[in-house]
């Protein structure tokens, strides 16, 4: 089912690890060179920057060619749909071809072609099957065919090409589905959460077989996404359904519209999920699931007051900041005081040079971005007092404070 053989992907993984270990000084240069010769892969890879621009220019090329076709031929909506389906097939075949013949692996080109095939498939199906249908605010099960196809195709791309964002696309399509089946917001939330939960059970069943192989990270990421998805579907204050409707300017479901038992059940769930996710992540020593657990825990703290109908205070972020820093410091000290700086198999020490690289890159990017995001638009409640300029020390090089 996967486009690349397990041995090829394992070899690539081994090469990456060898490079990291040599960079960290665990392997000597001579060892690294010898082992690198033993881990030659036929797959062609490139670095992240070239991958990104190859992706971008493939999108421009495919998008331009498609647009050119429609500008010159100007077909009807229905015919356009058929042509989009043909383009989807062409893009998919091209993606398969460059991946299997040219052996491109995470190279940008095959990824962009696969993404284009997914987009064209959905647009094509919508135009070919449902063009000219009058808009109806009522749910229409038949139209759910398009997002359902989006889910299936995205999952196929994820499985076939191993592209993590295809799984994310499948989750987004899944969020749209219940809107076609029912107008009840409660039912929509429950359906989305159930669909994600089914996915989670399937992933949790498969994962143990891939504990230490090349698929371990992929399944870990998918599980983290699914936990996040379940949480977001259950948190009525943060729900994507609400955000989408607010953005579209159409009817928005407020907390008062949900039945009290449902509303309070979700409140219990948003408090129950974070410890569950964190516990699973820690037990499995799973980085992505731990991150998902931390994120949902913070989201619960942030959304608790709106849930209870309590007013927010300006000092709430300060308390949250103190709590987060306090937890980080406590855990670090607790781990450091263990024998050899290790407790229960965990350490706060840096074991990989990659961590430092991430920190360095993150510190530059966040150092530039974060002060502006702190200072912009936060202070708006004082009527007669305004921090003008807000240009202090990068703490907002522009704009009002």
């Amino acid at each position, binding site marked *: 089912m996967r486009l690349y053989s397990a041995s090829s992907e394992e070899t690539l993984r081994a090469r990456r690890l060898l490079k990291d270990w040599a960079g960290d000084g665990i392997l000597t240069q001579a060892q690294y060179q010898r082992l690198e010769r033993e881990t030659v892969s036929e797959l062609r890879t490139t670095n992240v*920057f070239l991958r990104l621009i190859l992706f971008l220019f493939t999108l421009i090329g495919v998008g331009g060619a498609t647009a050119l076709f429609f500008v010159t031929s100007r077909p009807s909506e229905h015919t356009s749909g058929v042509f989009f389906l043909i383009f989807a097939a062409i893009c998919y075949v091209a993606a398969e071809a460059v991946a299997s013949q040219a052996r491109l692996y995470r190279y940008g080109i095959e990824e962009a072609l696969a993404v284009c095939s997914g987009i064209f498939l959905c647009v094509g199906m919508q135009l070919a099957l449902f063009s000219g249908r009058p808009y109806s605010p009522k749910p229409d099960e038949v139209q759910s065919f398009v997002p359902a196809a989006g889910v299936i195709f995205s999952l196929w791309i994820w499985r076939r090409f191993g592209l993590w964002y295809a799984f994310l696309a499948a989750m987004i399509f899944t969020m749209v589905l219940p809107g076609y089946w029912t107008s009840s917001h409660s039912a929509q939330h429950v359906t989305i959460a159930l669909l994600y939960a089914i996915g989670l059970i399937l992933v949790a069943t498969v994962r143990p077989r891939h504990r230490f192989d090349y698929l371990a990270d992929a399944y870990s990421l998918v599980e983290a996404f699914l936990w996040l998805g379940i949480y977001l579907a259950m948190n009525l204050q943060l729900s994507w359904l609400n955000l989408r409707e607010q953005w579209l300017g159409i009817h928005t479901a407020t907390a008062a519209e949900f039945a009290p038992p449902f509303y309070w059940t979700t409140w219990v769930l948003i408090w129950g999920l974070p410890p569950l996710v964190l516990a699973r992540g820690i037990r499995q020593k799973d980085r992505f699931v731990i991150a998902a657990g931390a994120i949902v825990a913070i989201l619960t703290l942030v959304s608790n007051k709106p849930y209870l109908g309590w007013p927010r205070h300006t000092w709430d972020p300060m308390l949250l900041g103190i709590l987060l820093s306090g937890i980080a410091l406590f855990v670090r000290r607790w781990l450091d005081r263990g024998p050899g700086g290790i407790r229960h*198999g965990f350490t706060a020490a840096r074991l990989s040079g990659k961590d430092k690289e991430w920190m360095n890159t993150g510190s530059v990017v966040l150092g530039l971005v974060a002060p502006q995001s702190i200072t912009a638009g936060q202070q708006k409640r004082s009527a007669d007092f305004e921090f003008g300029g807000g240009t202090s020390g990068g703490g907002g090089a522009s704009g009002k404070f």
Partner: protein
Amino acid sequence: MTIIARLEHWREHGAISPEQQIHLAGLCRGEPFSLFLELNILLYAGVLTFVAGLGWTVTTWSQQIGDVVVLAVLSAILGACFWYCFSRAPVWSAAETTAPSSILDYVLYLGSLVWCIELAYLENRLHVLSGQGDLYLLATTVFFFFLAYRFDNRFVLSLALSSLAGWFGLTISHWPSHQDAAYRQYALLYCVLVGVGGLLLQRRGLKAHFFGTYLNIVANVLFWALLSGVFDRQTYGLWFLALLIACGASLAWGLTRLQFAFVAYAAVYGYIGVSSMLLRSVTDDTAVLSYFVVTAIAMLVLLVQIARRFGRPA
């Protein structure tokens, strides 16, 4: 063959020692499992959230609380942060140094952000500098550069660089007209100042590892400035020439140093600039779309060649 099996195989064939095999197999199994990155992110998020709340609270409640209390609290936090940093900092070295504890980096960052809030408060509430905001911004920039170099802290270096950019922007905002052109020139001046400054410091061996940060920021500001000049319908000629030269330089630097971010800058910014020039008088949709198809394919061919020759995974 999984990596665990490979390690066993390599040990049997004498490619790695038994100790290395045990150590590396442990790393692969997450034994021990490092929470270094997660704890750092949590600390960073904590500092940022705290400062956001502090700024919000100060702005909202300053009149009720009173200036004296606000300034006393801010000064106390500031003093505590800098006391902590200076009392625990290792002896200064021109080379890259590791902080005695990673908490120090975040306390310094907290102090720097609180400094921003306090200065902004002083200026806007008490008008200490009588509207000369650019002066305190310049002073802040100098102070942040000092802190960044004293404590080897990239967070604060980024603050210093964005403060300097803010100072250029604020200075020029006093000017009555020709804003765009003047901003562009000041952006170039900023690039020259930061680029040359970074280069000199690197040559002198003063925290040479900061040079990458300088270079990335300079490259992006420079390309934005040049692109804005190319978009100008009156005086685009020289800007376009400068853009081509900058793209060439960025490409050469990226390929010789194997820093592919610079190849990406050259490709993306260059493509936008050249496309803007070539398409500015073209109104026919077919011609425009044909251009995108042909040039995208040309770029792909070129980039694939580059990727084959230079583009190892990073």
